[in-house]
């Protein structure tokens, strides 16, 4: 059994793509929420409050847009773990597990599939934001934001797979996922800068990997950020590698009945 079986990884990825593009209503549904956030929350906060730490020339909506992309990536990536739970419920996981394909390749295929769908949604929301007036720094910024998106998406797809390996039922999965995603989202500087928070909350924000993801996106897209892009990418790559290893390790023990 080859540990890394590229044909198998591609096959699993291809199936995820087919399923993704056939469920158009799901795509539209998943984009509606972040759009409401961006337009309503952005406009509302921009009008109601003055954020003291925003650099000149950057309004709240520009600050918020990278955060919303981070949110799209976070939510869609983690919930892509659902595909494993669906497969288990509809028996397809058995079909995958009985093939002579290593568990590592199965995880990698699933991860790659979830990452691609999240990435597409992240890019889509970026394009929509640009369509309604969000200005980015340039092509290079766009490319480096895509790299950040890939790293964010991969990391959290792995987290979703870990949850799906441990939790068997859909309700439980949703419960655990929202328990994790909301703190991660809110304390990631997606909605507000972390500088003025009380110390303990600030530290929580600093150990939150998404903080570096959003920061990297912000640097790439609007040229202004809290950390340097090098630090952001370093943290993201480390976290991503760790999550891939952990999810592979945990998925190995998954049993199908």
């Amino acid at each position, binding site marked *: 059994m080859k540990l890394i079986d590229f044909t198998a990884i591609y096959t699993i990825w291809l*199936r995820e793509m087919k399923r993704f593009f056939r469920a158009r209503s799901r795509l539209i549904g998943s984009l509606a929420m972040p759009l409401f956030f961006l337009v309503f929350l952005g406009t509302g906060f921009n009008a109601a409050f003055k954020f003291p730490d925003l650099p000149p020339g950057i309004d709240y909506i520009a600050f918020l847009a990278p955060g919303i992309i981070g949110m799209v990536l976070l939510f869609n990536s983690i919930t892509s773990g659902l595909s494993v739970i669906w497969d288990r419920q509809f028996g397809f996981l058995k079909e995958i597990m009985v*093939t*002579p394909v290593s568990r590592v390749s199965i995880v990698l295929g699933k991860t790659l599939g979830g990452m691609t769908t999240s990435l597409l949604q992240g890019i889509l929301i970026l394009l929509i934001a640009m369509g309604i007036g969000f200005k980015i720094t340039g092509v290079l910024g766009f490319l480096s934001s895509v790299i950040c998106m890939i790293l964010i998406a991969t990391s959290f797809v792995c987290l979703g797979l870990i949850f799906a390996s441990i939790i068997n039922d859909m309700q439980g999965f949703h419960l655990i996922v929202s328990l994790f995603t909301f703190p991660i989202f809110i304390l990631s500087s997606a909605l507000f800068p972390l500088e003025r928070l009380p110390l303990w909350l600030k530290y929580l924000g600093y150990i939150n990997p998404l903080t570096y993801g959003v920061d990297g996106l912000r640097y790439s897209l609007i040229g202004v950020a809290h950390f340097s892009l090098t630090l952001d990418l370093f943290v993201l790559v480390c976290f991503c590698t760790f999550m891939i290893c952990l999810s592979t390790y945990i998925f190995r023990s998954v049993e199908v009945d």
Partner: protein
Amino acid sequence: MEYAIELEGLSKKFGDFTAVSNINLNIEKGEILGLLGPNGAGKTTIIKMLATLFKPTSGFAEVWHHNILKEQDAVRRSIGIVFQDSSIDTELTGRENLDFHARMYGLSKEERGKRINEVLDLVELNDRANVFVKFYSGGMQRRLEIARGLMHYPKVLFLDEPTLGLDAQTRHRIWEYIKRLNKAQKVTVVLTTHYMEEADYLCDRVAIIDHGKIIALDKPNNLKNAIGEDVISLQVSDGGKFSDILTKFEFIKRIRLHDDFLFLSVEDGEITIPRIMRLAHEEEVLVHSVSLRKPTLEDVFLTFTGRTIREQEASAKEQNRMKAKASMRMGGKR
């Protein structure tokens, strides 16, 4: 004689519960072997161990000369499996499901195209190949799963309750496919079932499984012959008189008398009936009706386990309900 599958002392425990207990069994190449038993007898657990999905607690087995513990990869390549519950992606078309399977087993592009059409032909699904599986009937899904199990040219095909929940007509069709693939593709078939007719009709040999043990193993006919005789029931004008006459004949093993009904246990019912008719004519006994009942696997099962398969199947809840009803009825009589 080399065997397709050899099981030696195979056991599986889940906690304190022994699902499969010390099974020894050799399955010949090219045969259709049936594992017959009620739900929860351990049939599926045996199959899952052979398919490397469960690790046995003790003992070992070889599938096509590959050890199920040490050569999982080779075992998986030698087998195809159709699970008890559906395991198809209903959001894909039939062809896409087969294509997924073929790619996972590393078939080349030309092989894939050719083989997909072959297996679709076998189960007569060509015209529905490009339809989403969610629009398939239950029987069609089953056929697709059988086709998929055959995609990668397996030596052994495991079918776990292949006709569970299907109507009689569809069931017969699936039986025909199974017979056909066994002959045409030279695939050894191991199937589990709790349908007597299925085991009887399809299988070259049947292993009766109860509480994780094999309690009988033979050709269906041998099993039936071993437990017994055919039973002829007669309704006659004078039961007592005819019964006295018949006791003299050795070819009648036992006689039970019930008013004017006679139940005769005999070796070979078809040949015996004309002789009895002649006797009745000579003795001027009027025969109103006659019927012959040959032993079924159900009787075999009853003999070996002391219960019918349906009694076992009834869940504890149903059994309680039946008991409650029975005691009420008895109470009423008293």
